[in-house]
Each structure stands twice: as structure tokens, then as C-alpha cells.
């Protein structure tokens, strides 16, 4: 789930950069250092803005200036039970790997509907039900996260696609239109309240003036396209990270 999160970081600046546009330099350096990293619990997707830029303090010995910067960033923290859109990257006889942005998710054959079988003779090998569903590298899939493990600077997840509205995106869309039409309910993650510091993106979206109601990932996609136009960097960034971009009609 995406959150707007207030964070703080100490930025070091080399003495040769001391000058008029120091604050700008500090911000640029912050963005460069922080964006796209994983803290272990969440990924920092994009920095929205900075505030509370402290006065620089010269560190004894090195001459570097240390600034403490408060900043607001869009972070993504995957939760167990969360549904994410991902792109399949590789398929093998035990299941398939997919990437939801920076997160690598494995879906095993046990969590794939029984009618979708591994077909090794196809080129490239794929999971298919021999009619409309084909999962091969590059396919967009909707996955529910079953388990998560965090390492140092990385996260891994296990997912499943046997469930309602899960699996191949195309199928999901058709089912959705049949079931609920265009008005889809907004899922509010229960886990969001667990981390009180974070603002659920739903609230943030409302504050931003986005009123569309959609499942969370679709909403995200919506937000992201909006952001791409309004904020500039965000759209570019999430594309770099590999999130599927769905332009809403």
C-alpha cells in the first residue's frame, strides 16, 4: 500500500558545494540518495517535497556540512493480504516470478487455479488454461500477497492468483465490468491504521482532489497518471521502477 510518509535524513555536503544554491543542492542530493531505495520495511518511491532544512553543521575533521532534512515521500509498503498488480518475469515448472515495482513475488503452482497448467512445450514456456488465459513473461497479473520477508535493503513475497478477481488482468477486467461495473469499491487497508504515522493514500488522494473510487491498485494507477501530469517526477519514477501503468479512460 502507498503512503505519504514524513521522514528525516542527514545529508552531507562537500565543502566545494558551499554557496548560494546550497539548499537546492541538498535537496537534489537527498533525492538522488533516497529515491528508489528500500529501507527493509518499505520502498521509498518518490520524494514529494522537503521541509525543515536545518542549518548546516560543519563536521570536525572532514569539513563536510551536515544538514538534517525533513521530507515527505510516497512510500510503498506491501502487506500480507494486499492485492497488487505485477508483471510476470519468468516462468518455470514450479510457478512463476513477477515484479510489482521493485518487489519480486513468486506464485507457486499450488496457488494457481487448477485449470491453469504449466505448458513446457510452448515457446516460451507458459501457464495456460488452453483458452483465454496465458501467463508468460510480460503478462500483467493481479496477485494477492500471502507472505513477506524482509532482508537488508530487499523484500521478497509469495503470492497467489487463485481467488476472485485475481490472475490475468484481462480476465479480471471483464469479470469486474460484469460484477460491479465502473463503480468499484475502495479498499481501505486495515494494516494502514497499524502504522499511524502514515497517511493512507486514499486520504491523500482525496486531499489531492481525486475522487475516483476504484480498487486500490487501479486508484493508484489513476493517481499516478494524474501525478505524472501534475507533479512531473512521480510518473516517470514509477515507470522506471516498473509498475504497470494503466491509463484510465
Amino acid at each position, binding site marked *: 500500500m502507498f503512503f505519504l510518509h514524513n521522514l528525516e535524513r542527514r545529508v552531507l555536503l562537500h565543502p566545494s558545494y558551499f554557496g548560494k544554491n546550497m539548499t537546492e543542492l541538498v535537496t537534489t542530493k537527498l533525492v538522488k540518495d533516497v529515491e528508489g531505495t528500500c529501507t527493509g520495511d518499505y520502498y521509498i518511491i518518490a520524494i514529494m517535497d522537503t521541509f525543515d532544512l536545518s542549518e548546516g553543521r560543519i563536521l570536525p575533521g572532514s569539513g563536510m556540512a551536515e544538514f538534517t532534512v525533513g521530507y515527505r515521500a510516497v512510500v510503498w509498503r506491501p502487506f*500480507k493480504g494486499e492485492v497488487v498488480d505485477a508483471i510476470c518475469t*519468468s*516462468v*518455470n*515448472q*514450479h*510457478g512463476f*516470478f513477477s515484479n510489482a515495482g521493485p518487489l519480486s513475488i*513468486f*506464485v*507457486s503452482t*499450488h*496457488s494457481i487455479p487448477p485449470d491453469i497448467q504449466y505448458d*513446457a*512445450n510452448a*515457446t*516460451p*514456456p507458459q501457464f495456460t488454461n488452453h483458452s483465454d488465459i496465458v501467463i508468460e*513473461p510480460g503478462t500483467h497479473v493481479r496477485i494477492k*500477497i*500471502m*507472505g*513477506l*520477508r524482509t*532482508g537488508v535493503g530487499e523484500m*521478497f*513475497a*509469495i503470492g497467489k492468483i487463485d481467488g476472485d478477481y485475481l490472475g490475468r488482468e484481462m480476465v479480471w477486467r471483464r469479470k469486474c465490468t460484469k460484477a460491479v461495473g465502473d463503480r468499484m469499491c475502495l479498499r481501505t487497508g486495515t494494516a494502514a491504521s497499524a502504522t499511524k504515522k502514515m497517511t493512507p493514500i486514499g486520504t491523500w488522494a482525496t486531499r489531492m482532489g481525486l475522487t475516483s473510487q476504484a480498487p486500490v491498485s487501479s486508484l493508484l494507477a489513476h493517481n499516478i497518471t494524474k501525478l505524472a501530469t501534475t507533479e512531473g517526477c512521480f510518473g516517470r519514477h514509477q515507470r522506471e521502477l516498473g509498475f504497470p501503468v494503466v491509463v484510465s479512460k
Partner: protein
Amino acid sequence: MGKTKTIRLGNRLRYPITIVRLLKNPGDTVKKQDALMEYSFKWYKEVGDTIRGETWEEEQTTYADWSSPSDGTLNAWSIKEGQVIKQDGPCVLIDEDCSHEIQFQGLCAICGKDMTEANWAAETRDTERAPISMVHDQTNLTVSSTHAQKSERELQKRLLESRKLSLVVDLDQTVIQACIDPTVGEWMKDPTNPNYDSVKNVKTFQLDDGPHAVVRKCWYYIKMRPGLEGFLKRISTMYELHVYTMGTRAYAQNVARVIDPEKKLFGNRVISRDENGNMYSKSLQRLFPVSTNMVVIIDDRSDVWPHNRPNLVKVTPYEFFKGIGDINASFLPKRQDLLTSAPSTNGVKKAEKTADKNAKAVATGKDTDEVTKEQLEEQQSALEKQINERPLQLLQEKQDKEDEEAEKATGHSDDSASSRSSSPPPQRHKVLLDDDRELEFLEKHLTQLHKAYYASYDQKKSKRTIGEDVPDVGNLLNNLKAKVLRGHQIALSGVLPQNTDIYRSEIGQQITSFGARLRSTVSKEVTHLVVNTSQPGTAKLNAARRYPHIKVVGLEWLAQCFTEWTSVDETPYLYFKEDVNNVGAARQAEESSDDNDEDMGGIETGNTAPKTPQQKRNKLQIQLPPRGDDQDDDDADDDEDGLLPDEVEEGQMSPIDGLKTFNWGSAEDELAEFLASGSDDDDDDEDMDEEDEEDEEDDEDFAPPDESESSSSSEESSASRKRSRSRSGSPATRKRKLEDDVGDGEEDGNNDDEGEENSPAKRMRRMKSARGSSLRHQYEAAPDLPTPAVTGDEDGVEDKVEEEGQNFTDLDEEALAADLEAEFAADLEAEFNSA
């Protein structure tokens, strides 16, 4: 998903224990760490005053809970309340919720639980339930052995249905050759270059791997082996293809894209060194953990497949970019091949260094990661070197220079080489030749193998229903190969360094795998003598000359046999060209060599510089029994006749293998007995001889291993012994032998007619019994000699035998001595030359 698991009590409990109470009943849901039952155990506690030493032990009874090591439903108990249990055993059956058979990065891929959590209730970690990594492109996805079996059975079924086998294909120098020398790129753009035609269809890609500035963004030039496209296309109808390379992942994928743009042949079945988990060797078990019965490998190196030799079809390395070799093999030891164009000394050194480093790492327990890092850096620098030094350009320049010199007879050799842009001479020869035909043969072999496999499968199937028991392709491959050189007996000369075990050497293993028998010495049975034409071991050549039926061929013949899997016609490969025309040449050579023997005295047997065959031949004739300064020869002969095995026993095993089971104790006993009998009872010779003969018969079983052991393990020391003994050898002995040699030609002729039983080796063995007695004489004559000297000093012994003349001085023995003489002279000569 649920699977019943038998859970044991574990060996951490203090047995014997008494079951007090079962806390859960069958059908109950149990969680990890839930107490399942209560037990008690008795133990002794030391009580009393420890300072005064007044302590005694008191029995204590303790009650404890036994917790469940896994989640699930309790199925049944194997124990009862009140039962006393003496040792670890099955305790309870639990239907597990999830058996965690597939795991990804420490997460169970089925239930999503974290497997890395350590728990006191379980004896083993959950991560150990899925230890096998069998996916091509990931190492962090592991499965359990049962799951691996299941998925392999599926694979097998699928392959059998489509009547295919699996083929693991190596990239570098097997189907392609890669090179990063930028010269290739320049040649490709320059139609005037003589190599333009050759490099026209070289494929390129750019790779960004490596931190070094030079290697970054460097272009890779990929030359496919001629006919590769068609080969893969046709082969892929019979085999499911896998790529297994020592290159990086990015490299492997790019090459796969080059040779298989539509991803139809290899699909995603590409494994590289990043996923291999081992920098030095490849293993089929990495991809096929359960059964390799249906897997064939094609690779240009056999040493990287230490455990899968039976499945390997060895391919002649493809060398299009001359001198470049395999750009991804910096980690591997130097290849030992038949016919590699000699790799640059640089590469050899590097390989040695690498090997050293590995050894060091093992010895010091140095972090392997660190070593790996160092090696990565080394590889980087090797690549950089290639870019900077441009070996191909140097090669072409050299060729140009030669051309030029050939053109103008006067050595005018400065300009074109020094300036790259200077206009080339009109007729430049190209360095890169594209004349490889390996794939044609390879395709034939693979087709043949496929046919044989399914023939055998169908046969098996018709007899009874086949379960999981399919024919083993490794056996079939061995059978096919064993037919190739069956009936041939091959000796090598100048091919391997002296102190290598030929049976374990790469070439030796190959020869035996193709059904030929390998001989260490030239004898009557030998049919082919394979010589290294650039550096012939002259001695064995001469020995071979005594037998007109022995075909002396170059190594190329062997290589061609290995490539074509047939015993190819030797004619083009014969070492002595005139033998082709003149049938009796060998006989004549023999006679003339006999003539020459007499004038041998002062002639130096120097090193043979490259000469024409005729010259060589003359030289060889003169060299036959070296005399004068080369006195070592005699003694070395005597030594070696005891040390070297004459032939390989059945089963083509190295004779050393026999030693593993050899009973040294009994040998020592025998020796002691023998020595004792010699010292106390020496007069009645006849009796002793008989006794010794009996002993000898017993000894024969283990004699060859014994000999070979000492020859291989203590090669150096024996060599030094030889030398020291040679100095002490009496001139009389030498003279005697010289005479033997002179007469040896005629006797040899006689011997040729005799059967196999009379081979020098056999006769040698018979003679050994005689030695026993003479040895005793010797012992008697010089009682103050230390024991080792007695056993070692065969020089004097033999002399004695001959002088005695009663027991064994007949024609047979003389001939034998001569034969052996020739053999050993040959061996020694080889040693001299290679040194």
C-alpha cells in the same frame, strides 16, 4: 496439501524416559511449540559437601513437556501413557498443514510462512525441507526432494511422449566462439581486409558488465560454428535443448538471442555461472537432481563435468579467433586437450595462479567470496588485456609480414607491420579460416544416440510395462563409443609428460572410453603408436619399428577418430611417410638399426630439432641403444622393468586401483619370511627355488599394482636412485648387455612367432622367481649390505643371474633381456626428450 509426517522424539531427550500423559488426542489441531505430551526422566544429582569431598549422588525425577515441532492435525500416537522409552524413535503422526515443499528466499511458496525462523521445538530448520535448487534462472527457489522427483517424472513423461531427450549445450568453443578484440569490428567494416569474408557473419552485441571502464560497454563478437543453425534446428526435433555456460547471465542470454532469435530452441532453459553456484565445475544435478538417464551433454571440456562424464559427448573445441580461446574460462584450470593450438603462456600462468589461489584458499580457510572476487577481477583484467593488446591484429600483422617476406625474397620487413593503415599487399592471407566440420559429425552421433535410446526404450517397453525405469543414456553412449576403437591397442609417445598416470589422464580416459586398450609400453600386442609429431618420443618409436604391424600415427589421427567415432584410415596420418609405399620398410629399418648398434659408442643422442621425416628417421635409428655418456639408461631400464605395469588388466582400470584393497600386512609377512629363509638356509638352492616359485605365483596377483604404485608416487625419488646407481654400476655389466643387444635382432625375429604368453612381460614374471634365488646369492656374498640396497640393486642381481647361467641362461632369457632393453631404452628416451 496436507501430508502425514512421522515425528520422532529426537535425540535431545535424556533417555530412558517414561511417558506420563498424552495431552492431545488424535484429531486435535496442534500448533508448533504446543505441548503434546508430558514425560519424566530420572537423573543423578551430586549432593553433599563438595569442599570436604563428602558427596554422593541422589536420584531425581524431572517432568517435562514435549512440544510439537510442526503445525497440523494430530493423526495418531505411536506411544502410550506409562511406556518407558529407551532411545529415539517414532512418536507421533501429524497431518501437516503445509509440508513447505517449495521455498523462495526463505518463504514457503505454498503457505507464505517464513521458514528462516529458528525454533527450539524443531530439531531441523524448515529451510532444510527444500534443499534442491533446480530452476535454470534462479538459485533462491528451492524444492524438496519429493517435489523434485515429481517434477522430474513429469519432465520424463513429457520427453518420452514427444520422443525426445534432454541435451545440455555448452556455448563457448562448443557451438560458438566469442571474442572482444575490437579488431574484429574493424575488419567487419573493411571490405578490403582479407578477413572480411570470414568475419562477415559474426554477430555482435554490447554488454555492460563489469566495473572497469575498458570492459564497460564493450562489444562482443560471436562467431557461430559453421552449420550451427541447421544443426540446432534438426537436433531440436530429437532433443530438448538447454544452455549451460560459464559466462555471466547477461552474456548467456545475449548469446542465446544470437543463436536462437525466436527463442524456439532454448526457450528459457538457460543457466549461467551466476546460477550455477560453482565457478569451477558444472553439474547435471543442478538441473536434473534426481535422474540423468535422459540427459546428454555436449561440451568442449570434460574436466568441468567431474560427475557426469558418462553423459558427455566431448566436442573438439572451436577455434575461429585464433589464440583467443574461451573468454569465460579464466576461472577454470588449463585445459588438457589433444589438439589445442597452444594457448599463450600467459593463459597457462594465469590458470596455474588460479589453481594456486584455490589451493591457498582451501588451505588457509580464506573466505571463498574473496577469492571469487579476486578471480572476477582477474577475468576483467584478462578481458581488458584482450581489448588493449588486440591479439588478432598482431596475428594478422605477423601473417602479412610472412606473406611479404615470401613475396620479396629479400627480407623487407619493417613498414606494413608498423603502420596499421598502410595499404596491404595485394595477396594477403587471412588469419581467420572458417573450415570447421565438427557439427556434421556431432549431429550424426547425436542422431545415432537418440535412435539407440528409443530402440532400447521400445524394446524394454514391449517386454514389460515401464515404470520409472527408463534406459540410461550414459550406458548407451558408452556402448556406442566403445565400439569405435575396439580391438585397438594404443601406446602413446611424447604425448603426456613422463610422470603422469596415463590411465587417469584426459587422453587416456578418452582412449579407453572409445574401446581401445591403452598400453604404457610398446609390445607385440600394440596396434597403434600415437606420437606427438611436433615432439616425438623417439624411444618408443624405435621400439615400434621392431614390429612392422604397428602403425605409427600422429595425434591428429586419434583426434579424428574421436570426432568421427570411427576408426579412420591411418594413411594420411602415418608418421613415417615411406611406410605407406614400402611394405617392408619396417623390417628393413629393423635390420639397419641392428647394423647401427655397433657404431653407437660415441654418438651423442641430442635433442631432436624439427627435421624432415627422412632425417628424423635416420636420427632415430642411430639413437637406438644409447651408450657412452648416457649410462643411466641401463639402470633405468632395470629399474623400470620392475616398476611399470606391462599392460592394463581387464576392465581397463588403472592398476593403482588395485592397491586400495591390497593387503600390505600379508606382503610384509611374506617379505620377512623370504628374507629369513634366505639367511638361515642357503645351501640347498633347488628347494628354495621351488619355494620361491610358489611365492612368486602368489605374488603375481598383486605385483602389477605394487609396481605401478611405486612408479607413480615416488617417481622423483626413483629417478634420483637411478642416477646414483648408474654411477656405481660395474663396467662389466654394461659390456655384457651391449653384447646382448647386438644379438637381439635375430632373437627378436624368433619371438615374433611366439604366442602371446611369451610376451616380455610374462617372461619377465617367470624370471622373477629366478631372481629370488639369485638375490639370495647376492645377499650371501655381501652380508654387510643394508637390506634396502639388496632389494634395490637389481643391476648386480641380473649380472649374477647371467653369470650363474645354470638356471636361466637359455635363448629365451637372452631375448627377453633384449626386448626389455629396447622397451626401456624407448621409455627413457621419451623422458629425455620431454625433459
